[in-house]
Every structure is written in C-alpha cells, then in structure tokens.
C-alpha cells in the first residue's frame, strides 16, 4: 500500500518583488507501507517545506499528493489522524508541563491518559512529566516531540531532524526509538542530516536538491554504485590526503580511522598507487570499499566535504 505519494508537488514562496523562491520543484516520491524512508538533502533543499505541505501547514502551489490514498481535503484530514509528526524545532506551550502538553495532543487524537503515560515512559520523560516545557532542555523537548508523535499509535511517523541538538547519547536513544517503531511495523518518513544514522536506520531514501528529486531508491541500491578507495600510509596522513585529492578523477577525499577515503573515477587502484609512488608516497594499505550513504549523497549532490558530520 502506498502511504505517501506526491506528483509534481511544488511550492513557490511569493515575494513582493521578483518571482519569489521555488522551494519545492515538481517533486514526485512514493513511500510504501512499512518502509523506513530517509528524506535527504542539503540545508534549504526543500525537505521541511515538503513535509509542511504533507502535514497541511503549508499550501502547495503546484502538483498534488495523496496520504493513505486520500486526496480531497476531508480525506487528507482523515489521513492525518493516522500520522504522528515532528517538524523542525519542537513547539509546545511553554507554560504547560510535559504531560499537559501531551493532553492537548491526546484530545485531538482521541487518546487517553494511559496512552500519555505509555509514550512518556517510552521516551523516558515519566519522571519529568510535571516539568514545564519552558524549563525543559533541548533533549527533553525533542523527546516530548517524539512522544507527541506516538500518541494515538499512528501508522505513519514523520520525523524532521529528530536528533537535532542532542548529544551522542541522546542521538542514540532517538535512533533506538526509531528502530523500535520500525520493528513494530510503522512506516517512517525521516528527514535527517545524520547520514550515518539514516544509513543504519532507513530502508529507502530520496535525495533532493534545490527542491528537486535527484535520486530515490533503496539504501542498498544507492550505496552499491560508485567506487571508494581506502589508502593508508606510514607518513603524514594530511600529506597523503592532499596527494590523493590531486589524483585524476578523485573527489571528496577525507580522513577516517587513520586512512584516507576517496571517491575515484575512471582510474583503478594500480593507477592510484603508481600516481602516489610518483610523488614519493608509498601506500601501506590500498583497497576498494563499498561507498557509504554519505559518499553516495556527496557524489549526487556535490555537497561539501564534511557534510553529514556537522550537527
């Protein structure tokens, strides 16, 4: 069953002068039931705008979309009752405590106190349920947002940068919760910059850039294309990285685990080895590796090196 389907979905933000900004440009994606779908793109690529249109807070200016097969306003409203979502920064009533904020959500979703208690337990906020939202740390706010998405046991969960601002332990907790939700058979639509996490969590991904879909497919399909060489040397790793960067067709050379990982184009390992030897650098380790999702993402979008690591 198709849960989300967009066809030529577009959003142009109007401006008093000029043509405005085309944030989403003819986007067509499909998310099937049970998929954990990563929605990737550089900052400003239109991810949040797309999710905003799906959730009904932003009016599309072109194209169409269906949620759970529904397209008319009443069908979409009914479909949205089956969705739990977070979008950007968590926004709740600052003067209400965590539990009262969830009560507001629970009434809308027709849930009860038991459901609130359960989701608070899942996100680890039971002991902080009486803390006012304005007194919550960013991590607690993110957890509260995640708890709100789970109220009413939705079939589709849409998460927009759910681990933003969290420390590594918090990020791991969020990842575990997402995996648990996926294990329970929920369809998850996840927008994130954390490509390592997406690679570990998602079954499918779409990559968008400047509002356009540039690639959609399974994570396996995306990461099986392309070639990455891993090069080690006993010398200075930075000298090695610079040298490797100058190899014909090489791009996005980076240091990882004491090795240089680099995407290589036409040339193979023997050409790279000969190139380095010609520069007086002798590789102690040389191998081909399966590209990571981050490699694939940078290849496709031409994103700057280091993207996906900076939070």
């Amino acid at each position, binding site marked *: 069953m198709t849960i989300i389907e967009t066809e030529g979905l577009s959003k142009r933000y109007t401006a008093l002068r000029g043509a405005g900004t085309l944030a989403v440009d003819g986007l067509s994606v499909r998310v099937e039931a049970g998929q954990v779908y990563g929605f990737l793109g550089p900052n400003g690529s239109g991810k949040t705008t797309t999710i905003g249109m799906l959730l009904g807070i932003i009016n599309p200016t072109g194209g169409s979309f269906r949620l759970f097969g529904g397209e008319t306003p009443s069908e979409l409203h009914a479909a949205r009752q089956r969705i739990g979502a977070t979008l950007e920064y968590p926004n709740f009533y600052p003067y209400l405590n965590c539990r009262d904020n969830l009560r*507001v959500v629970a009434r809308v979703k027709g849930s009860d106190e038991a459901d609130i208690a359960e989701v608070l337990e899942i996100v680890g906020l039971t002991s902080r349920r009486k803390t006012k939202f304005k007194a919550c740390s960013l991590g607690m706010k993110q957890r509260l947002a995640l708890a709100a998405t789970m109220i009413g046991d939705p079939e589709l969960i849409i998460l927009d940068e759910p681990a933003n601002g969290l420390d590594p332990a918090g990020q791991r907790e969020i990842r575990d919760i997402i995996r648990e939700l996926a294990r329970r058979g929920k369809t998850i639509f996840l927008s994130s910059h954390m490509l390592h996490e997406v690679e570990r969590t998602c079954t499918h991904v779409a990559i968008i850039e400047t509002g356009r879909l540039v690639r959609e497919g399974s994570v396996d399909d995306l990461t099986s294309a392309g070639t990455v060489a891993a090069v080690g040397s006993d010398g200075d790793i930075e000298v090695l990285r610079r040298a490797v960067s100058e190899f014909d067709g090489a791009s996005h050379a980076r240091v990882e685990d004491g090795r240089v990982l680099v995407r290589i184009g036409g040339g193979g390992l023997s050409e790279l080895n000969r190139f380095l030897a010609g520069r007086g650098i002798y590789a102690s380790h040389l191998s081909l590796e399966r590209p990571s999702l981050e490699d694939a993402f940078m290849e496709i979008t031409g994103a700057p090196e280091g993207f996906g690591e900076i939070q």
Partner: protein
Amino acid sequence: MKGARAFGVLLRNEWFKARKRVAFWIALGFYAFFTLMNYAQPFLEGSEGFRLPDMWASVFGDESPTVVIFASLTFVLLSATEFGWRTARQNVIDGLSKSQWFWGKALLLPMVGLAFIGVHVLIPTVLVLIRTDFAAAEAPLVPLSVLQAGAGLGMAFLSVGALAFLLTLVIRKTGAALAVWFLWVGPIESGMLPALVSRFLPDYRAWLDYLPFTNAFPLFEFRNYDAAAHERYAAAVEAAGRTPPAPVDPTWHMVTAAAWTALLVGIAYISFRRRDL
C-alpha cells in the same frame, strides 16, 4: 475528528489552555478588582440607587465599554502568542486541520467574553442583592430587559472582539495586533474617519454610527432595552435642565453587530486559510 466531537475537543482544549495561563487569570482578576472597587463606595454607603432593579442601568451602561476592551485585549494576549510560540503550527502538525484550529480560536472569543461579562455582571449583582430590600420592591427585580441588555452586551463584545480576532490572525504578533486594534477603536473610528466622511462624504455621516465600535454603544445602554429605565433617565436629564435624548432602538445595532462579527470572522478565515503556518 468531525462534528460534535471536534466541537467538544476544541472547546475543552481552548478552555484548558486558557485556564492554565497565568495571563488570563491576572487580566480577569484585575478586571474583577476594578469592578469591585467601582461598586465598593455605593455599596458601603448604601446609596439610594444601589438596589434592584435600578442598578441594571449601571451594570449595563457606563462600564460596559470597559469590559469589552478588557476582554478583547485578553483574547489578543491569549491568541497571538500561538503564532510567536509556533503552537498554532504544532497543533496542526498534531492533527488539527487549519480550519479546526481557526474555529477553536473563534470559540475562545465567546469563552473569554463570557468570563469577563460574567465577572462584570456577577460582582455588582451580588453586592446589590445584599443591599436590596426584597419586600419593598415595586417592580420585577430582574426584568426581561436585563436578558436583552445582556444579549446586547454579548453581541457588542463579539463584534468588537471580532476585530481583535481578525487583527490577531492577520498580524500574528501580540503588540502589533493590540496597537492596531487600539488605533482603530480610538483615533481612527472616533476621529479620523468621522473627519474624513464629514469633509468628503457629508451625506453618509449617519453611516458612521454603524462602524464596529460606535455601533456597540447603543447596545451598551440598558435604557435602550427598558422603557421604565429610559423614563427615569429622561426625568433625571430634564431635572438637570437638559433635553433628554430619544430612546434608540437597539435592533438594527444588534443586526449590524452580528453582520460585523460574521464579516470580520469571515475575512479572518479566508486570510488564515490562504497563508502558511
């Protein structure tokens, strides 16, 4: 979520959010204090007119614009912050449709009005009941005209509050919405528009009586609903050597207030639906 369930959820959520908000209780408490102080002196002195049914002319009269202003300001305070905190957006993310969010806020308007008008009527009523000699009463203590005046005050609040509602949803900022609302009910409607109409459209001066705030004034006056109260008022004015005004039929002002309410809420709805959250 549809129909009666949606109505119930919106009503409960809006009341829940309002009653948990300190600003709401501070505003209501301040108004209650203001009202109490206003009636404290005649109550303590046992003034001649401080009895039923004479008191209704005071409850539905001079102080009525104040309750409308207080309630409208409180509505803006409670509602505009939904945009600053981005909770309007969050509510829609959490499952409300934009229309439902809008109607939730539209329900908040009469809720706030009821709370303030309740305080406005209840405090003097309780005080005056203590002072009233029920055995000596010659006329019904609570005539039908009290209900009419109450409905008129409610309708007057809705029309003036609808302007606050529209400005809140269009401007989306507390300070700016309050400033524009004050500008409208103050200098614009009372000064600039009459001056412009008198100068350029003198034949239409009578229409100025039907602008949202000006239209509300005849609805505030108890004597416009109660012939006996008007006679007492006219006698007092004549005794002071002035010509008493003719009674105003509040019906058309009531209809106009309803029309303003529908128009301003309708514009707010169209504007809200068209804009992103």
